[in-house]
């Protein structure tokens, strides 16, 4: 789809794209190229000598048990966040699709957490689960569970999963609700006439018809859990205790800015770029086939 009519000015289009192009080149393309370059060099701690080491940084990375551990943690974290945020949002959306009275009010009261930064969400839950004064931690102590997210890696992981998923529910809710409302009523009515109850209708008609939305949201949620949760980790657990919540984006920051390991951090950047490219490609492939469904 291209315009058949257009302006024939020669210089104007370059003036128009100049700002966008300059920023893209200076702050995106150039740093990305640098990351590729730096991932193949090794520098001493004072930056005095630089040496080309080929793929040694990558070999070191994938031989490093801490990095492999970080990959595991990231996969676990993303799966838990995406799983819980998606299922809760779907439940709420199905219910909201059913009610008539107060639907608009529910919608307003369910979407506002989208506006919160992940770091803010983290601080809110950190406060609730604070081992000494937190309300939720108090409740758990009363139930006999000695909650302490500063000492227990499992508790810290549960904390960040809850904080990350809590914020994401409202986003998923909006898209699921839109997806549900786009399903033709006639299909549901036909099934009801044939005697299918609400549960049967959901699993055999609604859920399959929602699968494009679900798949799209799955990718978005994975991207969110992988990349947008840096602030959440940094503001709450700082990767601790004992690396138990050190997901990949946190590790790349920590190794680069705290550990000053330029080659290692750059190699991690390259790995992360590969992951984003993969997820973006999947998402775009899906956008193509969504129309077919």
């Amino acid at each position, binding site marked *: 789809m291209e315009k*058949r*009519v*257009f*302006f*024939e000015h*020669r210089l*104007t*289009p*370059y003036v*128009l*794209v100049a700002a*966008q*192009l300059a*920023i*893209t080149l*200076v*702050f995106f*393309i*150039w*740093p990305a190229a640098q*990351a590729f370059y730096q991932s193949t060099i090794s520098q001493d701690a004072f930056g005095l000598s630089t040496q080309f080491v080929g793929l040694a940084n990558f070999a070191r990375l994938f031989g490093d048990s801490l990095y492999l551990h970080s990959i595991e943690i990231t996969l676990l974290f993303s799966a838990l966040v995406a799983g819980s945020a998606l299922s809760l949002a779907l*439940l709420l959306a199905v*219910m909201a699709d059913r*009610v008539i009275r107060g639907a608009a009010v*529910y919608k307003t*009261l*369910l979407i*506002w*957490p*989208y*506006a919160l*930064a*992940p*770091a*803010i969400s983290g*601080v*809110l839950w950190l*406060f*609730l689960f604070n081992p000494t*004064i937190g*309300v939720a931690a*108090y409740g758990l102590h009363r139930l006999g569970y000695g909650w302490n997210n500063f000492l227990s890696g499992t508790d810290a992981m549960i904390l960040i999963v809850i904080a990350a998923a*809590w914020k994401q529910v409202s*986003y998923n809710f*909006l898209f699921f609700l*839109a997806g549900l409302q786009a399903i033709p*009523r006639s299909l*549901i009515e036909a099934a*009801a006439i044939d005697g299918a109850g*609400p549960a049967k209708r959901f699993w055999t008609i609604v859920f399959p018809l929602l699968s494009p939305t679900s798949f799209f949201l799955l990718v978005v949620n994975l991207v969110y859990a992988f990349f947008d949760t840096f602030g959440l980790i*940094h503001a*709450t657990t700082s990767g601790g205790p004992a690396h138990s919540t050190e997901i990949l*984006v946190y590790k790349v920051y920590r190794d680069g*800015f705290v550990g000053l390991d330029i080659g290692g*951090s750059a190699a991690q950047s390259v790995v*992360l*770029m590969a992951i*984003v*490219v993969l997820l*973006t490609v999947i998402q775009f492939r899906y956008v193509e086939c969504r129309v077919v469904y």
Partner: protein
Amino acid sequence: MVEHRPRLTFLAHAVLILGVFVLAFPLWVAFVASTLSASDFNRIPMALMPGGHLLENYSTVLSQGMASAGAIPVARMMLNSLIMALAIAIGKIAISLLSAYAIVYFRFPFRKLIFWLIFITLMLPVEVRILPTYGVVADLGMLNSYAGLSIPLIASATATFLFRQYFLTIPEELLEAARLDGAGPWRFFRDVLLPLSRTNIAALFVILFIYGWNQYLWPLLVTTDPSYYTIVMGIQRMVTVADATPQWQLVMATVILALLPPVVVVIGMQRLFIRGLVETEK
């Protein structure tokens, strides 16, 4: 619904009310905490009804910040966040409108290449190119400045695509008519395209304002001077004050102040917000 099932409708309401409650609970506790005094936190469990120190706590953080954390007044951090969010939102919209206009309405060498260069930025969030980007900004002397906080974030493939898609749907007769009337490219842009794109611009503005306000990693990297701290990343320093336990009533007052502007924007401009959200994800 297709059939009348009062019990299911009741269940739906119950689940929704429970959902609303679970989503709102952390916010309520934070609000309550922001109205208590420091000594109230010695009582375990903490009260769940607001105390009487609301004005005191909020005026303390707004005018002084948290002295023990060496932080600046929260009013200043909010101003920084506001400047950054507005600069990012307006900057992104401006450069995306212009480049989408060039890509759709002009034919010129390297058009495809430029389009792909912009497209690639989708795959390069700050998080993945963190150290080199910091290096570039440091070399340009943009650390600790509003320019450093906002300019590196204003290139955006999503906004450019959104406007490109929209421009492609605008009937070609408009351009033909404008050209017959002797309008040049700037005239056509200003008098035809801009007014037509008004709703899209507004919807995008809502999304981008929230995006800009909620930035965390970037301000953390480029600001070492506290007077450029933004509120969302400034809170972290309050939580992790090394010398003593955090003063939760002040931290929570700051949290409420940090989340209020974007939440007000989302609720107040709900229609635009939802439109923007759905459009940018296409």
